Structures are given as structure tokens and as C-alpha cells.
């Protein structure tokens, strides 16, 4: 009898992998064939020995070693994320520290283009005997620096009571009196001719 065709089914039957109908057919054949009976017996015995040989438990130290290696690797990968988070936090702190100054710069209105002569001229109080450079008249009065003129290529030629001023020098300080009514604006225009000086006095609403 050629039993080669039974080998695969017998091997499957040894591991209970055949459906009942096929299993019954194999059992019938094995009952009549000594060689196939030995094959089935040998397969079952080997499977049992194999399971037994591989049933030894693995030492817990091996599991712990794997876990430690994996966690170490993952922790190493997560480190850059922390570094990025730290950098981001530092950047935020820096931004918060710098922001008020930056806002002051941005919010401050750009100085209106003022005629050079106006910027160089003392306020109208100069004509009433006050310090031509706008020195405070008394203690406790606030001082602000006037915005620098947008363009000034003209050298002041010795105004009344003051030394000549040149471009780039600090603009004069001006006393601010918030509660006082607006004073008339006086503009002194200096021409190329040193003998010709034009005064323009505006008595509008502060303009």
C-alpha cells in the first residue's frame, strides 16, 4: 500500500488538526497499516517531547532585562522632547520679559513731522521770560523729551539766550502742564539769509 498520500493527514491528525470526518478516515487507515500506525505514534511522542523540552520557564531576570533595555531606549528618545519643551518655555519667559518694552515702542505714536524751526524753538513761554530751553519753572512738574524732528539739516544760529545747536544733538526738554490751556504755537523759520527770520504764531486749539 502506498502510504505517502496519508502522511500529511496523519501528521495533522497527530495534532488534532483534522475535521472529524477526515480524522475518522485516518483512524480507519492507521488501524489497518502498521507503518502508518508507527508514524502516528512517533509523531505524537515527538510532539509531547518537544512541548516538554520547551516548557521550562524563562527566568524573570531575562524579562526584566528586556524591559529595562526598552524603557531606557524610549526614555532616551523622549529626552529631546523635553529639551524642546524647555527651550520653548525659556523662549516664552524671554518674550514675556521683553514684551512690555516692545509694546511701549510699538504703541508710542510716531512723532508728527514738525518743522525744524519749531522743534528748535522754545515754547511760547520763552517770549514771556521763561528759560528758552524749557527749564522747569517749579518743583514737581513732569518732564518729557520731545520727539526728535524727522529731518533737520539746518543749524540754528544762536537763538535768543542759547548756544547754537546742531543736528543730532538732544532736543530740548519741554515742560508739560496737562491742566493748562493750550498755548499758541510759535514757529521761527530761518532762511538762508541771516537777516531774514520769519515767525509764525498759531493761536488755534493747540495746533
Amino acid at each position, binding site marked *: 500500500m502506498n502510504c505517502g498520500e496519508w502522511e500529511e493527514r496523519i501528521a495533522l491528525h497527530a495534532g488534532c*488538526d483534522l475535521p472529524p470526518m477526515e480524522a475518522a478516515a485516518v483512524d480507519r487507515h492507521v488501524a489497518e497499516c502498521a507503518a502508518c500506525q508507527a508514524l502516528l505514534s512517533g509523531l505524537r511522542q*515527538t510532539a509531547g517531547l*518537544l512541548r516538554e523540552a520547551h516548557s521550562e520557564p524563562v527566568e524573570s531576570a531575562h*524579562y526584566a532585562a*528586556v524591559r529595562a533595555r526598552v524603557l531606557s531606549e*524610549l526614555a532616551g528618545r523622549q529626552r529631546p522632547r523635553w529639551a524642546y519643551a524647555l527651550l520653548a518655555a525659556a523662549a516664552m519667559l524671554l518674550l514675556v520679559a521683553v514684551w512690555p518694552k516692545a509694546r511701549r515702542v510699538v504703541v508710542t505714536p510716531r512723532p508728527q513731522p514738525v518743522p525744524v524751526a519749531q522743534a528748535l524753538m522754545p515754547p511760547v513761554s520763552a517770549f514771556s521770560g521763561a528759560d528758552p530751553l524749557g527749564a522747569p519753572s517749579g518743583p514737581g512738574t513732569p518732564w518729557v523729551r520731545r520727539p526728535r524732528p524727522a529731518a533737520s539739516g539746518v543749524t540754528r544760529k544762536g537763538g535768543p539766550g542759547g548756544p547754537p545747536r546742531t543736528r543730532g544733538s538732544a532736543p530740548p526738554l519741554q515742560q508739560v502742564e496737562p491742566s493748562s490751556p493750550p498755548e499758541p504755537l510759535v514757529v521761527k523759520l530761518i532762511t538762508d539769509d541771516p537777516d531774514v527770520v520769519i515767525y509764525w504764531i498759531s493761536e488755534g486749539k493747540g495746533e
Partner: protein
Amino acid sequence: MKALAFLAMANPAGGSDAGSDASARAIAAARTGDLVAFETLMRQHERLVLVTALRLLGNMEDAKDASQEVFLRLYRNLGKVGASGNFPAWLYRVTVNVCYDMGRKRTASIPVEDAPDLAAPGADPHQSAAGTERQRVLHMSLRMLSAKERAALVLRDLEGLSTGEVAQALGSSEATVRSQISQARVKVKDFVERYFRRRI
């Protein structure tokens, strides 16, 4: 109490469900970067991964390397794993694939005919029949198989998966897996019988 006992008997797979729930919770937590949760997940499945890798690769150091790689792949794919229904099947598949990759880098499978040369020289035939020698031969018998035959046999006969589960884990059809399993069983039996016959 009686109701609980009845439920426990009616659902013998209840432990498995609890295990899968625990895995699902650990996966969800680990997905947020929680390494403690991921360690819990590893503890739940480390036997499956390490023992399978050991059976497929044949030595502990390689098995540990393979297990490490499996868990790193698991970490990278936590999102996909959560979506897939059968987490152990996914783990078996990845473990087998990692072991395939490692096996390719090492020596190919050893022909059965050359196997007796691997036996310990001068081993006593009487001792060979028992204990350590027999275990060594049985472990060696798996190395005589091709990678796919070995994987099919290990998952079916040693891990106890059904033929369908083995097919799912190996990405093969059930018919292919059954063929691989039957061939592997016959080869292992022949190897073991031939070995001991020659030694005696």
C-alpha cells in the same frame, strides 16, 4: 455569590476578556507617552514575545534582542494597535517578522542530513537518551526547519494557537499553514529518531 459563580462558569474566557481590557487601558495610557503604562503593557505580554522569540531563534541573547525590537515597534505603532481588534495576534505577527529578519542576517537553516554533526562529541549514548541531551536535540530539531515551518510549528504546537490564528499571524492561508505544520512535524520526528539511532 451564586450568580457570580454561574457567570464565571458560563464565560470561561472571562479572564482573557479582563486581560484584553487591561491591555486596552494600558495601550490608551501609553499612547499619551506614559512609560509606566507601557511597562505595564510589556509585563502583560512579555512572556508571549520572549518565549516565542526564544523558540524561533534558539538562543536567549537573540531572543532578547528580538523582544526589544518587538516592543519598540509596539511603541511606535500604539495608535494602530489600538484600532486592531486582536492585540496578541498583532504581537505574534510582529515577533515572527522580527525573528525572520534576524534569522536572515544569520546563518540559513541547517540541512537535516548534517544535523547529527551538531551533537556533542563523545556524548554517552545512555545519557543521550535522557535529560539534557534529549532537550538539546529537541531544541536543535527546530533549527532544522525552514523559518516558515518553524514559525508555524512553534505557534501551533508550542504556543497553542489554532490553525486559523497561526494563519493570521503569519499572513498565510490556512491551507498553507496546515501544509507547513504537517511537514514540520514529520521533519522533527525524523530528525529526532535519526539522531538517537545514530548515537546508539
